[in-house]
């Protein structure tokens, strides 16, 4: 068998391919993050990064750790399903530093009607009022205690 005439040419081309392949593997291993493909076709570390976002709503469990008197009162009333921050707003900062960060003062004239002003699309069983006719400007908490709003005497104002 005779030796192929331009063997060196082929060798050089093969060498160029080999160097290219090695460079590709090396560059790829540097550029692609190690966690890519850990769970699927995405960067696995992104999951942990998204989980580090700061919390704004403390959660009612956190509130109840200190304000157990309110949660006891609330548990017996109609507002048992209403979590603290539904009315009081996001208070993780207050939970983190209870003395310096004080929750804002609430306005029942705004808060109560948000849920209880009549609206035809609300479920019929949900207690709804026409605020103007219901109280004639008297603020809600004059008669209703927000944490347990049902008036015990049964006499509707």
């Amino acid at each position: 068998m005779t030796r192929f005439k331009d063997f060196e040419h082929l060798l050089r081309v093969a060498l160029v391919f080999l160097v290219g392949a090695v460079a590709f593997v090396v560059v790829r291993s540097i550029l692609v993050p190690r966690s890519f493909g850990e769970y699927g076709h995405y960067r696995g570390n992104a999951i942990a990064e998204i989980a580090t976002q700061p919390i704004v709503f403390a959660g009612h469990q956190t509130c109840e750790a200190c304000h157990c008197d309110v949660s006891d009162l609330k548990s017996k009333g109609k507002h048992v399903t209403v979590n603290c921050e539904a009315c009081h707003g996001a208070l993780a900062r207050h939970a983190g530093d209870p003395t310096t960060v004080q929750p804002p003062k609430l306005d029942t004239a705004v808060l109560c009607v948000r849920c209880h002003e009549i609206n035809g699309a609300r479920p019929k069983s949900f207690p709804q009022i026409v605020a103007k006719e219901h109280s004639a400007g008297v603020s809600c908490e004059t008669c209703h205690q927000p944490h347990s709003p049902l008036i015990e005497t049964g006499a509707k104002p």
Partner: protein
Amino acid sequence: MKITRRRLLILLPAAVVAWESVLAGTPEAAPNYKLTEHWWGMLLDIDKCIGCGNCVRACATENDVPDGYFRTWVERYHVSDDDLADPVVDSPDGGKHGFPLLERGGKNFFVPKMCNHCADSPCTQVCPVGATFITPDGVVLVDKTYCVGCRYCIQACPYGCRFLNSKTQTAEKCTLCYHRITKGLTTACCEACPTGARQLADLKNPKDPIHAFLRTHSVQVLKPYMATGAKVFYNDLDGSVR
């Protein structure tokens, strides 16, 4: 310092170790949380929704959602008696500030909307760069550092749950408050919902009340014919809702 051959041989492995740690990136944020032990979804109870907009506001506060965009929103449906197939839907500012009183007959109800965290989500299938994905615990997330802002996923979502954040120029959506649920809290919208119309559900947790609820109620998902494997379950959903 003169780099001798001996010093170089000592320094090289140290450099390799350092580079390895750079490549590995940030460690796990919630060490006690096991990805494989959860499969998240949500229950939305139409019978309980009063359209107060608390969820929309809470979501915007928790996640810094830009004005005019929504990760969750509330729609008001009006279905007249003689035209069941064509409901009139309104959602002023996503229901963020409630709904004005409208006196009209027929059937009226609220439908909260959000990402359905589909098990076979169209949005993750179309992403060309691997920036959006479903986690092993069933939450569809966006990797902001990988997103190139091509908007393909925004078109692909059959529920219209995604938008492009004009500041970061990346796709944004409900994360099911991933930073909260991995720490044992519920989502901001569930926390703020006054009637319990929204309930976070862990489908892999046998003690979760969702299992009993699904067995005993007529529960649906939105657009089941899209075969997206949606995991946001609607109780008593009207046929006119789309």
